[in-house]
């Protein structure tokens, strides 16, 4: 006897424990199996691009903090890079190093969050999440030393950084760089070889390299598919061409690979910081720029490798004190393109972890 079944449509979200904010997945289930997914978002849309048109070039820095609110430093960096390209501003050496140090710290913090929440979604009762937050806390303390804020840093300015690091910053940074590898080791001990994690994440949500490139996927998600592409190497900005680091890649592009790539990137970031601390010269931290920057008429696209992928700012200037158009190429938003292809056919529990492994931040998706 054939039992008649009918698909069930469930709204996962906007208030669901594992949607990373206000995000809605309209999912059609056949039993536990996902038939169709439609992401619905925009709940956090604040019109950053429109707001930027009415702010001066420096004031927009504060808006970029609020895009990807777990990695404000890289947002600042991407924006000020675009402005510097547009207006032709030179940056002092010391500022470049400070920028790299702070954005690599931010990358570690962001990847810690991604890993912690992935494990939370796997059902590990908050323990890995708490460990991740514990380590992130130390990084945020460093940010507080650097610029007086922990999340919304507003640290970088066109032409340099806001202010030099205080004296007690350097010993604290050394301590962190020394202690961090063993924390990452500990985190890996809890997760990497755990058979339950392997059973849940291995071969789940496989993304192929061709598909990823065609769908403009960037960041750890792209690297997990085996494509060795990192903007820090491909188009070295700041001082990335003066430091040595590897670009970790995954083997097959499944959820486990995405996790592994993130963990290995944390190690590489520590390597970069270590070398930067050795190399950093004394000197200015900010070149003299007018407070109201008036770039020449034209456009510029500046991008950096943010923890989520390629974060780009496309600025159009009409010669005034505010950008005529400020387009944000947000990696979280564009990585969502493949969501439907990734999720269809998997089970409900897989849906949650695949979605978690894409590591989106709603502030950046909705802008």
């Amino acid at each position: 006897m054939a039992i008649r079944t009918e698909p069930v449509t469930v709204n996962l979200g906007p208030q669901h424990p594992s949607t990373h904010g206000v995000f809605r997945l309209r999912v059609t289930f056949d039993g536990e199996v996902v038939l169709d997914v439609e992401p619905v978002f925009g709940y956090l849309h604040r019109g950053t691009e429109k707001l930027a048109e009415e702010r001066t070039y420096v004031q927009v820095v504060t808006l970029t903090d609020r895009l990807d609110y777990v990695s404000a430093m890289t947002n600042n960096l991407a924006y000020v890079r675009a402005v510097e390209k547009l207006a032709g501003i030179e940056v002092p050496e010391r500022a470049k190093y400070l920028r790299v140090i702070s954005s690599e710290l931010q990358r570690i913090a962001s990847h810690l969050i991604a890993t912690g929440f992935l494990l939370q979604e796997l059902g590990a009762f908050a323990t890995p999440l708490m460990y991740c937050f514990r380590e992130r806390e130390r990084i945020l303390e460093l940010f507080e030393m650097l610029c007086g804020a922990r999340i919304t840093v507003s640290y970088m300015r066109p032409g340099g950084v806001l202010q030099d690091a205080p004296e007690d910053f350097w010993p604290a940074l050394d301590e962190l760089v020394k202690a961090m590898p063993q924390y990452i080791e500990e985190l890996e001990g809890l997760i990497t070889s755990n058979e339950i994690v392997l059973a849940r994440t291995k071969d789940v949500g496989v993304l192929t390299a061709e598909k990823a490139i065609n769908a403009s996927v960037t960041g750890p998600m792209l690297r997990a598919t085996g494509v060795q592409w990192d903007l820090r190497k491909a188009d070295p900005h700041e001082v990335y061409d003066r430091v040595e680091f590897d670009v970790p890649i995954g083997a097959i592009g499944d959820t486990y690979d995405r996790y592994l790539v993130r963990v290995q990137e944390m190690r590489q970031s520590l390597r970069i910081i270590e070398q930067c601390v050795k190399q950093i010269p004394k000197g200015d931290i900010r070149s003299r720029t007018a407070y109201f920057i008036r770039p020449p008429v034209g456009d510029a696209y500046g991008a950096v490798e943010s923890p989520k992928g390629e974060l780009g700012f496309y600025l159009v200037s009409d010669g005034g004190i505010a950008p005529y158009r400020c387009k944000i190429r947000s990696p979280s938003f564009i990585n969502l393109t493949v969501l439907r292809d990734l999720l269809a056919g998997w089970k409900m529990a897989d849906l949650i972890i695949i979605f978690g492994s894409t590591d989106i931040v709603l502030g950046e998706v909705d802008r």
Partner: protein
Amino acid sequence: MAKALAGTDVARRINETFSGVALESNKTDVWVAPDDLHRAAKFLHDDKELDCAMLLAITAVDYVERFELVYHLRSMRKNHTVVIKTRLSGREEPAISSVTDIWQGADLQEREVWDLMGIRFEGHPNMKRVLLWEGFPGHPLRRDFVR
């Protein structure tokens, strides 16, 4: 170091295959007519030398008398970037052909452009608003949008 291909070179290459498609060019950008955009995009994607495998971003800029669409393209194998632009006239629902069949990555971005700028992409499988709700009056990123 990634290289931004000179617009004139790219324009020359495009015109060698489809003559007259690239209207004008300067050091960085190439302008094509909106009707030829799809052809040019397909060529840029398929050509072995240009090899633009990834569509980085689609931006619409509102210059009041016209809209300008900016396509940032990137070759992963050759490590260079190409910028092509096209000008659209008319403020009442200007339309252009979609490039989703060439790059899947255009999917959400074209929806976003439609949502915020009001440029319709013909041939897009799911041309709906993405950030704002259906029934939102107007397209907020336009310069003449009034709350």
